[in-house]
């Protein structure tokens, strides 16, 4: 082969390139088109010259061209990767991807707009399937969200409605206790019934808190100014000791001036932490409840001895329905720490847990000044 034959024939490259070439005049008329494109459109190239670009665009493509592409071209001089539909003589759509660039004279006058076109039928099919998948996923997410909402509402209603029969049973045990006719065995049975009622009510409280949180209400706080936390915390300890009278709780309270907080929620937080310490701590070791203030923070901690929490469980402690490995009837739903964490967050604070051989410690830290928002 001679060297001459290796030189690319540019005229042939233009005409028979594996893509369409199209040049438009400044007023959008076709001035030149290559054979490849003319063949796609089933026209002789000469039949296309002098016709407006609109003649070979689908209606949608035409409007997109006028409202979107033409302005971009006028502003930027070029635009890439644009989807258009061409129309052949039988009005069949040919999806293409187009790049376009203006060719201007030195004076700035627009001479031509050049377009390079690639067929994109497969690509369009793929894009269609992506769009379909997206629409389907969005619909499915919507259905699932609705189902979850209904379930949470159901839980909230169920929890609420369970309170009434429980209140009736509690009234009954109270009447029995007050009747004065109970022998020692009867009193023990009624006492156990009361303890079970308390547990049942606690479970309902937890479930309602969870459902409310999930329903978007979040942990609504009833913020009160200047709350003295000492009586609040002491009351919680008294209640815990009623059901755990064999345990020792050492109280180190140094809370000083009153703080702004939701006292009922703080009581709930402390109660949950103490109940956990009673449940999971070594029975022969004291539980330490400490509270103090730094210039900026209120810090409350509950420490118990016994087996440490496994390292792999620590990260999930504050998730709802997380439970330790030991399952027994005394255990709750695993919502206690989740609620503790939510109360901490609602106060602008946080929970910290450390668990070593000697002791496990849950610490609540909250800023004394409520953060904005």
């Amino acid at each position, binding site marked *: 082969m001679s060297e001459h034959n290796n030189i690319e024939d540019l005229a042939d490259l233009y005409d028979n390139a594996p893509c369409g070439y199209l040049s438009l005049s400044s007023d959008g008329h076709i001035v030149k088109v290559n054979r490849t494109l003319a063949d796609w459109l089933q026209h002789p190239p000469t039949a296309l010259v002098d016709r407006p670009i609109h003649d070979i665009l689908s209606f949608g493509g035409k409007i997109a061209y006028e*409202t979107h592409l033409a*302005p971009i071209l*006028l502003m*930027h001089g070029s635009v890439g990767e644009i989807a258009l539909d061409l129309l052949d003589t039988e009005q069949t759509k040919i999806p293409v991807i187009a790049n376009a660039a203006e060719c201007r004279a030195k004076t700035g006058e627009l001479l031509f707009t050049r377009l390079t076109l690639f067929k994109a039928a497969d690509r369009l099919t793929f*894009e269609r399937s992506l769009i379909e998948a997206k629409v389907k996923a969005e619909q499915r997410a919507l259905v699932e969200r609705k189902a979850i909402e209904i379930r949470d509402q159901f839980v909230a209603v169920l929890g609420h409605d369970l309170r009434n029969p429980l209140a009736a049973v509690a009234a009954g045990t109270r009447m029995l206790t007050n009747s004065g006719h109970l022998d020692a065995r009867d009193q023990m049975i009624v006492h156990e019934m009361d303890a079970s009622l308390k547990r049942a009510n606690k479970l309902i409280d937890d479930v309602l808190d969870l459902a409310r949180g999930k329903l978007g209400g979040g942990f609504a706080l009833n913020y009160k100014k200047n709350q003295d936390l000492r009586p609040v915390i002491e009351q919680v300890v008294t209640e815990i000791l009623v059901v755990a009278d064999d345990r020792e709780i050492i109280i180190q309270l140094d809370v000083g001036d009153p703080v702004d907080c939701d006292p009922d929620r703080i009581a709930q937080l402390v109660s949950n932490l103490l109940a956990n310490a009673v449940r999971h701590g070594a029975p022969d070791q004291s539980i330490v409840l400490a509270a103090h203030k730094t210039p900026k923070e209120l810090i409350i901690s509950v420490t118990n001895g016994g087996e440490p929490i496994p390292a792999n469980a620590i990260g999930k402690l504050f998730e709802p329905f997380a439970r330790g490995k030991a399952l027994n009837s005394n255990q709750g739903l695993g919502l206690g720490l989740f609620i503790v964490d939510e109360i901490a967050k609602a106060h602008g604070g946080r929970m910290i847990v450390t668990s070593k051989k000697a002791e496990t410690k849950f610490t609540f830290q909250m800023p004394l000044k409520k953060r904005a928002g």
Partner: protein
Amino acid sequence: MPLKRNNVVVSGQGDQAMIFAHGFGCDQHMWTEVARAFESDFRVILFDHVGAGASDLTSYDDQKYASLDGYASDVVEIGQELGLHGAVFVGHSVSSIIGALASIQAPEMFSSLVMVGPSPRYIDDNNYDGGFSEAQIEELLDFLAENHLGWSAAMGPAIMGNPEKPELGEALTKSFCATDPAIAREFARATFFSDNRADLPKISARTLVMQCKNDIIAPEYVGEYVHAHVPNSEYVLLDATGHCPNLSAPAKVIEAIRAFV
């Protein structure tokens, strides 16, 4: 809130304000060159409709923006925020109707209205010739639903500066005329299915209808229809072709606006 939502940009100086509104398919940058010419005499205001340009996409509400009234109430809110009174509203394409609706909602806000390529209704109806059939508009919506390439913000980096107009190059946001494809489709639906013929006689602002030749979106006879039905209106046929004279023939647009105001 409305100023951030609609990416409102204020420049220029003057007692009277001139607010420019872009049409379907683009954003405020299509007015850059024309608007600049008025900065010495007017307080110039540019903005993006929600869903376009650098507007706050999270403000997009498909119910509100299902009709042009939603867009018009945004214009009124911007006007209230900026304390506009007796301002000039310049709207391109569908925004000329949005401006008309805003001026009907708040007549003191706009004393003059410039409508560039307006159409009160795109679809033919009995004796009315809008230039489009309903089937064609459905085809457009199908096209927009399926052809996302070229609309999304991702195309930004592919756009290169124009060496002939360096001032337009780098300064421009990369998202020029980019929009969420789904929102573009809904804007197209609100635009091309709109029928605001009954609103034209309610326009009290003095109005200039600016029309181009060979405009496939808003043909000359539609511009003439608007002129015939807006009480206090003037009509000018620009010596320019296509739908975007603010880009293809900015000098002629500037001249026509100047003569009018």
